[in-house]
């Protein structure tokens, strides 16, 4: 039931997306809004249909319309097991921490540290293995991306605030 509700909510998100696209483009010149409208109107109609179908599936236990195999990489069914859900939460926490750290400290510092900490605390690898991988990331980022390609790195908010 939870999954079905979440699936319907996701469809609703698309409905809002198309409605938003239509609404925000209403004041543009015709030439600029023609294609967005040409896409958003059928998109709105399709998402309404899909949402209706989802709700039917939700409450009346009707057969789902698209049980066929979609043309995409199939995901593992482990995700719906308790362990799978726990690991899903865990990886989202790691990704979230990675994003926040990039924002605070910058990409150049955080990337090797992320690899190091992940391998130490999540993968439970030996410290020297984690150090080896971390060093490889530093070597690649500094040696190749920074020194050869001169990639401009994101400054961390923390460093900017402290005046570095």
């Amino acid at each position, binding site marked *: 039931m939870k999954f079905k509700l979440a699936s319907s909510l996701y469809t609703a998100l698309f409905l809002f997306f198309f409605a938003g696209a239509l609404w925000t483009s209403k004041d543009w010149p015709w030439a600029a809004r023609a*294609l967005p409208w040409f*896409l958003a109107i059928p998109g709105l109609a399709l998402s309404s249909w899909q949402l209706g179908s989802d709700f039917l599936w939700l409450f009346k236990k009707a057969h789902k319309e698209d049980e066929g195999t979609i043309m995409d*990489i199939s995901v*593992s069914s*482990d995700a719906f097991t308790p362990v799978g859900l726990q*690991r899903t939460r865990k990886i*989202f926490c790691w990704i979230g921490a990675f994003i926040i750290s990039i924002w605070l400290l910058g990409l150049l510092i955080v990337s090797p540290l*992320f690899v190091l900490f992940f391998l130490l605390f999540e993968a439970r690898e030996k410290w020297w293995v984690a150090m080896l*991988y971390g060093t490889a990331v530093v070597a690649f980022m500094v040696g190749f991306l920074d020194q050869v390609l001169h990639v401009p790195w994101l400054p961390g908010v923390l460093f900017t605030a402290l005046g570095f």
Partner: protein
Amino acid sequence: MAEAASVLYSFFTTTTLLWLFIGVGVGLIIGLLPGLGTIPVYGILIPFTLHLNVLETIALMLGIKGVTDTSGPITSVLFGIPGQSGAQATVLDGYPMSQKGEADRALGAAYMASLLGGCIGAVVLALSIPFLRAIMMIFGLPEFFALSVVGIVLVSIVSSGSMVKGLMAGCAGALLGLVGQNPQTATIRWDFGQLFLLDGLPRVAIFVGMFGIPELIDLFVKGTSVSDVPFFPSFKKIYEGARDCFRNWGLLFFGTIMGLFLGAIPGLGGGRISWICYGLARAFAKGAAETFGKGDVRGVIVPEAANNSEEPGMVIPTMAFGIPGSPTMAMFLVALSLHGIQPGRTLFLEHFDVVLTIVYVLFVANIIGAATCLLFTKQLSKLTSVKADVLVPMLLVLIVLAAYQSDVGDLVVLFSSGFMGWLMTRFRWPRAPLVLALVMAPMMEQYYVLTALRYETLEWLARPIVIVFLVLAILIILSGIKQLREWIEKVCGRLVPR
């Protein structure tokens, strides 16, 4: 003939071959790293090429460009992360093959398709030199528009299995592709006051996020390795993959010719060509409707042949008319102009040796590139057996570096599209229609606007190539409608019990 032999003799000098090897090495590394294109590397190399002669410059620069798509499928096949834009479509069948423990076969097929695509492309380039102008002149604005229509209707093909969701994803992708400046009125669409959105959403971040992050999360959740079965890479299976190319020679040839032809059309790069070829093969190849997207080796062969033959194709407008087929080709043109080589008629009359060298370089680079990749395939395939906990942090950093183009907005787009892609996989939404529409919609709009401005009436609809493309588009729609009809029958069958 004597000139061809003489140029071949001068091509096989130690220094030219040395620079070719260096170029191929650099190109293979670029192809391996998702998001890193040839443009920044060309930017660094152009001043350096002043110290080389023309032949060495061509060997170095086209050596790089000729093979980036050969190693591009490695990350697509092994981890589901597109290495290069041309390898996006390869993910759909290459990664499922890895999950089934067939990474070595998939890579063998990808390299052989790349090799044959690149070499056949180079030969056809050589043979087509006398007809280049005639070939190029048949393509005008209406033809570009009609071709983009073909591209966008392929959404109906890649939506199979979930037509409504696929079409919705296609509409959403096309709308996302329209972010930025409108080509006719200069109206800024959905930029939300962000400077980085003026040029549209960063596509690399979307592709890598949409395909890479969900696979990464899935890999972590499984907690095992990419390969679901115990995996022992062998040269026998690599050879099997290579043989698959010959078994499916028709599709290989189709991908090669389409890649070459579409590559010759300026502005069609960026993964569009391999998507179009993949979609067309999915629409018309026997049994493809049932097997594509589930680890069918043909789904690897077609896009890989197309993206490698695209390079010789891109050389055609660049050298014949001075119209670069891509930003990389524009930089290549700059490098040649620094050596006093100008494209066009004079190039063919006064510097025919340069033209022949280009053909030789593309031919030899593809052979060296594919051979090098084949040598390392067994080792690379073992990566699919590495446990997820070790792979995940490395891949996540690689994904972030691939998407990052100097703006924090790139990372916002990366993680948003990654989350969206993850939800799509959870709720069984196909991602390919979204990505395909995203790349095709801006092109369709741009060429429609230009066509409408150039022609006051609809006379352009009567142009032969336009008619061919529009008929092809209708055939694709009909093929899609077959699935639509089946879906309607299924729904109606449920509503009205028989």
